[in-house]
Structures are given as structure tokens and as C-alpha cells.
């Protein structure tokens, strides 16, 4: 195969339409998003995409949004970011933890382009990080779950043993245990973010083990469907509202809402006020939303859950407040002590009472 000839042919074909590249509209602010999954995956990537679209609508003609979906982490993502920066994009959101080092590298190469990396911990003068305190939502789920379980067995479909997932399990457990001392958690590590069939099987296994509440930290609605088929099991939406399954089995949900943050950051670029920040927002600023608590939840439980939501939102309550011991019984937080963000960010242990193990 002669590559040069091949290219000439391609050039001739393309030459017919040689209208030049899409003219760079300098008046518009160009914003790029890099997604790890398809933009309509029904979970993590879709929420970033939908929030990006809300942001685009907010600014109308003033912004141009470019999106790249299903970008593998590692070398491919670094290339995609570089190409975006070369094409004149001024602000790039990289929306998966695995993009951290590539984002750092590209940010160093393009000091005049702003970068925002989701869920990471490395910053630079032109690189911010942002993440959501999902564990605040988990606390509310734990409360509802602890109140509503009849078998006292709660199932949890976990993806990978990383701090975010471990925080969620701890938070849900602490608050379930608080209202129901007999509660037990069964944890299944699925070792995947996305495999609907496996998630469905995991949900069924938990239900067969007697769990009548299934919490999930994977993205598909498969566990919801499994719970619906079982008939007497409640679930919570993850990442998106999953309201198709309301009012039962889905009784509430945690929703990621990145739109306010995206609007704020794009506005900052337009105003020339962008600075590097580390944002970790929860229910208060609206980055984490609690989906409607359905009619399947008794009114008093709903009222308590909403009260907890308000307390978390206004800062009067923190889900990780002592006294709390680690799983091995050693003390972690003293009475009234609040976990500091540094420890929470890298949390790699379970609290006392959980019987599951963290694979390592």
C-alpha cells in the first residue's frame, strides 16, 4: 500500500470541498468537554454532558461548546486535550479521574488555556479541580434505608475500591445504623463502572441474600429493574434521577448537577476573572441534589430526611461527625469531631460495624 498515493487521493476528494477549516469565531468563548463514556450513557458522562448543554443554553451565542465522548484515559486523552487546545478552545473540562496526569501535562504546555479536572487533586495556575460531596446524599439515603428496611439487610453495589466509593458506603452505613442498630450491609464489588448485565446479577444476588434495600454506585438502571421485578425491594437513583422507577422501587436519588458550576466558570473566563481553585461542593451550593422522595416513603421518614438535607445544606450538620471508630475498632473521630477534608478525600478504610472488606 502506497501511503502517499493514498493520501493524494484523499486530498483530491477532500479538495472538492476545500472551504477551509471552520472559521474560528473569536468573539465566542470556546469551551471543551472530554467525556469518558458515551454522552448518553445514562449516568456519569451524560450528567456532565447535560450540564454542559444547560450551560450552553444559558450563554446562547456567546459560547461554542465542543464535546469529545468515549475518550480512553491515558495517552488518547492527552492527545484529545492537546488537539482541543490547538483548535482554540479556551476552557477545557476533563471529566474523569483518570484524566488527571494528562490534564496536568497539557495544562503545562498551554499556559493560556484554562483547564478544569473533575474529581482529581492536582492543580496548577491554569488548572482547577472540582468534585461533588456525594457522600452528603448517601447520608440521607442511609437514613431512609435504615428506617425502611424490614429484613435489616441493605445491599450495596460498589464499583472499585476508591475513596469516593468508600466514602459513600461509610456515610450510608453510619446513618442507617444510627436509626436502626440491627442493620447489616452486604457489599458487592463489581469491579466495573458499567456492565448492566453484571449490575443486574449483583442486584439479584443481594436480593436473594435477603436485602430489601439496594444502593448502587454503578451507573446503569439495571439494579432498579431487578428490584422492580422482585417487588418488595427499594432502591435509589444514582447519578441521575432514574425517575422512571419512581415511586417504587426508586424512593429517592442523588443527582449530579454540574450546570451551576459550569456557568460560573465559563462566566469567569468571559470576565477575565478565572483563577485556579479546588472546589468540593455538596448539597448547599446545589452541586449535589436529592431527587424527589417518593410517596412510598412514610411522611415522618421523609420529613426527617428533608431536615437532614437542610442541616447538611446550611452547614449545621456534617455526615462524618464523631464519635466514629475505624473498622478495626481503633478510634477515628472523637465526640463531636468532624472529619477533615484531607482524610475524607483519600479515605481508604471502613468505619466500625461494616463487615465487608476493602479489596487491596
Amino acid at each position, binding site marked *: 500500500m502506497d501511503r502517499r498515493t493514498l493520501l493524494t487521493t484523499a486530498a483530491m476528494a477532500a479538495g472538492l470541498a476545500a472551504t477551509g477549516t471552520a472559521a474560528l469565531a473569536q468573539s465566542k468563548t470556546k469551551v471543551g468537554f472530554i467525556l469518558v463514556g458515551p454522552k448518553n450513557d445514562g449516568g456519569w458522562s451524560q450528567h456532565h454532558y447535560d450540564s454542559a448543554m444547560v450551560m450552553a443554553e444559558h450563554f446562547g451565542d456567546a459560547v461554542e461548546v465542543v464535546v469529545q465522548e468515549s475518550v480512553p484515559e491515558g495517552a488518547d486523552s492527552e492527545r484529545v486535550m492537546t488537539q482541543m487546545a490547538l483548535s482554540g478552545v479556551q476552557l477545557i473540562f476533563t471529566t474523569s479521574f483518570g484524566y488527571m496526569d494528562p490534564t496536568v501535562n497539557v495544562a503545562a504546555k498551554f499556559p493560556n488555556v484554562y483547564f478544569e479536572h473533575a474529581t482529581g487533586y492536582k492543580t496548577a495556575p491554569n488548572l482547577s479541580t472540582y468534585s461533588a460531596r456525594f457522600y452528603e446524599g448517601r447520608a440521607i439515603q442511609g437514613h431512609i434505608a435504615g428506617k425502611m428496611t424490614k429484613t435489616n439487610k441493605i445491599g450495596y453495589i460498589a464499583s472499585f475500591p476508591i475513596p469516593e466509593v468508600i466514602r459513600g458506603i461509610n456515610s450510608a452505613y453510619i446513618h442507617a445504623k444510627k436509626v436502626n442498630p440491627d442493620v447489616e450491609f452486604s457489599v458487592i464489588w463489581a469491579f466495573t463502572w458499567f456492565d448492566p*448485565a453484571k449490575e443486574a446479577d449483583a442486584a439479584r444476588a443481594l436480593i436473594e441474600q435477603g436485602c430489601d434495600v439496594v444502593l448502587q454506585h454503578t451507573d446503569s438502571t439495571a439494579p432498579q429493574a431487578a428490584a422492580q421485578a422482585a417487588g418488595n425491594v427499594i432502591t435509589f437513583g444514582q447519578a441521575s434521577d432514574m425517575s422512571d422507577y419512581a415511586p417504587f422501587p426508586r424512593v429517592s436519588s442523588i443527582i449530579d448537577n454540574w450546570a451551576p458550576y459550569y456557568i460560573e466558570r465559563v462566566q469567569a473566563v468571559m470576565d477575565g476573572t478565572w483563577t485556579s481553585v479546588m472546589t468540593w461542593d455538596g448539597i448547599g451550593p446545589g452541586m449535589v441534589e436529592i431527587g424527589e422522595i417518593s410517596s412510598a416513603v412514610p411522611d415522618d421518614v421523609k420529613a426527617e430526611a428533608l431536615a437532614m438535607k437542610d442541616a447538611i445544606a446550611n452547614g449545621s450538620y456534617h455526615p462524618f461527625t464523631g464519635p466514629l471508630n475505624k473498622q478495626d475498632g481503633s478510634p477515628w473521630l472523637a465526640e463531636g469531631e468532624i472529619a477533615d477534608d484531607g482524610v475524607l478525600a483519600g479515605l481508604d478504610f471502613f468505619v466500625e460495624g461494616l463487615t465487608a472488606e476493602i479489596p487491596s
Partner: protein
Amino acid sequence: MEMFGGINPAVLIASLMVASTPILLAALGEMVVEKAGVLNLGVEGMMITGAICGFIVAVETGSPLLGFLFAAVGGALLSLIFGVLTQLLLSNQVATGLALTLFGLGFSALLGQGYIGVKAPTLGRIDLGPLSDIPVLGRILFSHDPMVYVSLALVVAIWAFLRFTRAGLILRAVGESHEAAHALGYKVIRVRMLAIMFGGACAGLGGAYLSLVRVPQWTEGMTAGAGWIALALVVFASWKAGRVLVGAYLFGGVTVLQLNLQAAGAKVPVELLSMSPYLITILVLVLISTRGAQGAPASLGRSFNASS
């Protein structure tokens, strides 16, 4: 009846039958294809195409059975691309099959763009009245959706077809030696094309079982490697229908069991549980293969051209 602190064997077996049905259907189809001497590595692509075709039709018509029908049609149509390329244009089967998977994954995602988050009508369990109430056996044998029984019937049908019918004999002859079959006047290409389309239809059914029963919903890439497992099962089964069933239920069974063991809080390292379906499949295969011949069709993967 309980074991491992709360795992009920009857429930476990019933679940593994559901979990295994997609790979069982796909593997049965691929086995027939390979029996005809064709290696189609595009199972994953045909499965996912079946998954979306079935899903779309089920949503639009409200009938899951029509969904399954069109899943089979969709899988068969996609396999036709493979058939034309490998049988008429004599392209390399391994590469064409892989290309089919690539194409199928992309094509299905394009078709499915309007169907994310949509709920499809699902297939209910067949009500067998008092039979379903028999303890243990009722749960295992008489409380499934129709496709589980279809897949089991297919195992028997394929076994009988290959073993007792003239058409089955011709198919095997074509797979063992296409020159000899041709010399005897059989239409090698036509037999292979039909086998390929049958394989596509079966893979399509397996995919639709995922999107309409086991999950049930549509998401891009939802087969998540099931097609590859189906391919492995055919080899595992030494090209025998009964063994495909054993292999599929073994793999599905270990998958379900490991999740149940985790849920029951068994003190086995999770990493080990998580890889156990693959390791145990390899182990069993090694044990089987020490006993001798594996019986791959002799012409497997070779192109046939009458004038050559």
C-alpha cells in the same frame, strides 16, 4: 436448603439460568457456524445489534416477542455482511469477524440514540400453575420466561439436527472437508451462508435477551464482552451442543455464585472471586482436554472457492 450461610441452591440455579441464557444462545449459533467450517469472531457485534433491534421493535410495537423476532432478523442481516465478504469475496474470516464487531458496536449505538433511558416491555414468566409451586424443582424448572425454554429447546434441536438429519450431515461434511462436500455436489457456499445467518440470528436473540429481559434497558456497549465469552464457550464445548449448555451454565453459574458469595460476606478475597469465572472455565477445560480429542471441524476458518 441452604449453604454458605444463606445461599439457596434452588434460587441460585434459577438465577444462573437467566444469567447464562444470552451466552448460551449466542454460543449455540456460533457452534453451528463453526460446524460448517466458518469462524465468525463478530459475535459481540451481532449480539449488540440484536440487542438494539429487539429493543427498538419491542418499544415501538409493545410486543417483546416481536422484539425477539426482529433481533434475530437484525443479527442475521448483520451476519450477512460477514457472509458476503468471507464466502463470496473470500476475505479473511478472523479479520472480517473482528471488523464486524467494531462495526456492530458503532452501528448499534447510532441506531439506539433515541432509546436511552426508555423502558421496554419485558417478557413475563410463563405461568405454569401448580408446577411452579413444587418446592425446589418448581423454582428451577417451571418459573422462567419463554426464552429460557427456547434456549434449552434449541440445544436439543441443534443436537438432533446435527446428529440425525441429512441437512445436519451435509453441514458437518462442509465443515470437515469442503472439497469433498463440493465434489459430492453440495453447495458449500450456500450451506455456509445459511449457517452464518443462523449464527447471526442466535447471537441477535442472545443480545435481545440482555436488553429485554436480563437488564432490561438499552445502553451503548451493553453486551460488555458477552460475545467473546460465547466464542470461548464453543471451543470449551468441543463443538458439541450439550457441552455448550454445560459450559454456559458453568460460566454463568460461577458468575452468579461469586456475586452471591460476596453478598453473603464470604471470607474469600474479592479479586479472586471476581476472576473465578474465567479461571474455573480454564481449569475445567484443561481437565477435559487431558482426556483427548477436541474435534474442531477440519476446515474451520478456511475459505472455499469452487474454481480453485
